[in-house]
């Protein structure tokens, strides 16, 4: 029914018309575009603008839908969105209410994986320096996996075969599905809370058998990866087959490509360890034997260097003989000395005999008497002789006596000096010669000095 005049409407009425038209026309639509102006306020709703080269449209992702997204929205991301068109009446803006968002050209999970990997990497969760060493000979091993999988069977079989000493503590968890990540995280935390008394394990294996990216997804979830990185107990990740690398693998202290490989990593090979023990045993025996042999040689050498016992005794016998002989000699010498001493004493006693003294004194008296008489005689003779001696000496000393024997004295006639040397006079001088009887005067003809 056409109307002549355009209807007069309030703003609200018009807006309501537009909204119902739009909502009826676009109840559900896929739109392709690039995210921009993304805002994520604390309400949990996310607001964004979808644009292509020519146009743009506002869009809202409510919290309940946002939580279901595996990956994070970000500006510049090319996406395919499913939504319905609506109008936000207070502002008259039309916008898309998003039901689902998928990254364009790449899987949703792949994108989520890449985003979380980049985030956790930037936090340093995958750094080598965080890795803890695995124990060499673990006695208690914790396993976080499904109780009903081939993975557990393989793990237990191989661990037991290689290293039967290890005790296994299993935390059964779902490894896929909604509950998996929560259970795996809780199990890792539970193991870390165990005290040594209540069965603390030294190493943990967290894993499952292989599967699709979806099946393995729990091992890419942020809380699982963080729980692994935070674990005080060293963790070996064992997820899937060789080609699947999960974020859990990157955060773990050691990555095993499969559960079987984890079993081989976590425990030593008992056969080789036994071999090692036997080898130690052989070395032990060998070195002990060689020690004994060396000591035996030393004992033998020392034994050979011991002198003959007969020689030792012979030596002593000889010394005893020697000493005996010396003793004999000494005793003999001593006896001889005593003998001598006795003789000396005997003669001393004899010497001390008073009769001998008396005889000797008598002899002396006789001798003295004789000497007295003789002395007297001698004295008389001596006096007589002494009385005659000065007379003859006087005769001998008188120069006249000398003249009597033919000597003469020459004197200088002038001064009466006695001539003692030829030179006391001169040729032609007159000298007076005094003779025994009379004097003569002579003239010196020639002087002959002494030759």
């Amino acid at each position, binding site marked *: 029914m056409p109307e002549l005049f355009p209807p007069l409407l309030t703003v609200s009425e018009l807006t309501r018309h537009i909204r119902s038209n739009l909502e009826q026309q676009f109840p559900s639509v896929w739109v392709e575009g690039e995210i921009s102006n993304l805002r994520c306020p604390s309400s949990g709703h996310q607001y964004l603008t979808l644009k292509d080269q020519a146009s743009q449209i506002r869009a809202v992702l409510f919290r309940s839908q946002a939580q279901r997204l595996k990956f994070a929205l970000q500006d510049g991301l090319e996406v395919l969105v499913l939504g319905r068109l609506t109008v936000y009446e207070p502002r008259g803006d039309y916008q898309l209410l998003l039901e689902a968002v998928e990254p364009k050209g790449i899987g949703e999970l792949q994108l989520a994986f890449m985003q979380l990997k980049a985030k956790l990497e930037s936090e340093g969760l995958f750094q080598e320096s965080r890795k803890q060493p695995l*124990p*060499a*000979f673990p*006695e208690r091993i*914790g396993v976080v996996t*499904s*109780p*009903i*999988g*081939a993975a*557990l*069977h393989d793990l*237990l079989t191989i661990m*037991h075969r290689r*290293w*039967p*000493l290890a*005790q*296994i*503590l*299993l*935390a*059964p968890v779902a490894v896929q599905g909604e509950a998996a990540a929560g259970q795996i995280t*809780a*199990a890792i935390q*539970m*193991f870390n*809370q*165990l005290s040594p008394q*209540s*069965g603390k394990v030294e190493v943990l294996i967290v894993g499952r*058998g292989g599967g699709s990216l979806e099946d393995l997804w729990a091992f890419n979830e942020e809380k699982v990866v963080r729980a692994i990185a935070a674990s005080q107990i060293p963790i070996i990740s064992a997820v899937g087959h060789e080609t699947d690398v999960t974020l859990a693998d990157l955060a773990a202290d050691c990555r095993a490509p499969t559960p079987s490989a984890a079993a081989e990593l976590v425990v030593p090979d*008992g056969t080789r*360890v*036994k071999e*090692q*023990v*036997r080898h*130690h*045993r052989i*070395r*032990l*025996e060998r*070195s*002990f034997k*060689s*020690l*004994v042999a*060396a*000591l035996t040689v030393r004992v033998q050498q020392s034994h050979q260097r011991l002198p003959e016992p007969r020689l030792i005794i012979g030596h002593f016998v000889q010394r005893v003989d020697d000493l005996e002989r010396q003793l004999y000699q000494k005793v003999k010498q001593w006896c001889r000395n005593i003998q001598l001493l006795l003789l000396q004493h005997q003669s001393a006693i004899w010497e001390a005999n008073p009769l001998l003294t008396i005889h000797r004194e008598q002899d002396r008296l006789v001798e003295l008497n004789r000497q007295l008489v003789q002395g007297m005689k001698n004295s008389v003779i001596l006096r007589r002789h002494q009385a005659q001696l000065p007379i003859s000496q006087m005769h001998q000393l008188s120069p006249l006596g000398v003249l009597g024997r033919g000597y003469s004295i020459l004197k200088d006639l002038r001064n009466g000096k006695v001539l003692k040397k030829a030179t006391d006079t001169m040729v032609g001088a007159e000298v007076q010669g005094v003779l025994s009887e009379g004097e003569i005067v002579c003239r010196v003809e020639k002087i002959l000095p002494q030759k």
Partner: protein
Amino acid sequence: MAAIKFEKALSRLETIVTELEAGELSLDESLRIFEEGVKLSKSCLKMLDDAERKVEILVQDKDGRKRIQAFSLEDSNSTES
């Protein structure tokens, strides 16, 4: 037997072998550690030979208390792959 930890026993055995090979000990001391070494090597081998498979299961009750109980692989069905 679990009282002697395997790793400790093995490392002690290695020490003994090294010491004995160095040959700087007295005969008495050598004899003593030789005997200790032989005992250790025997018990190490015995530990490995006699070990029994022990698997337990760690579960958490509704009230959050943790329990450890025996677990037998045969009890579970291992057909899922």
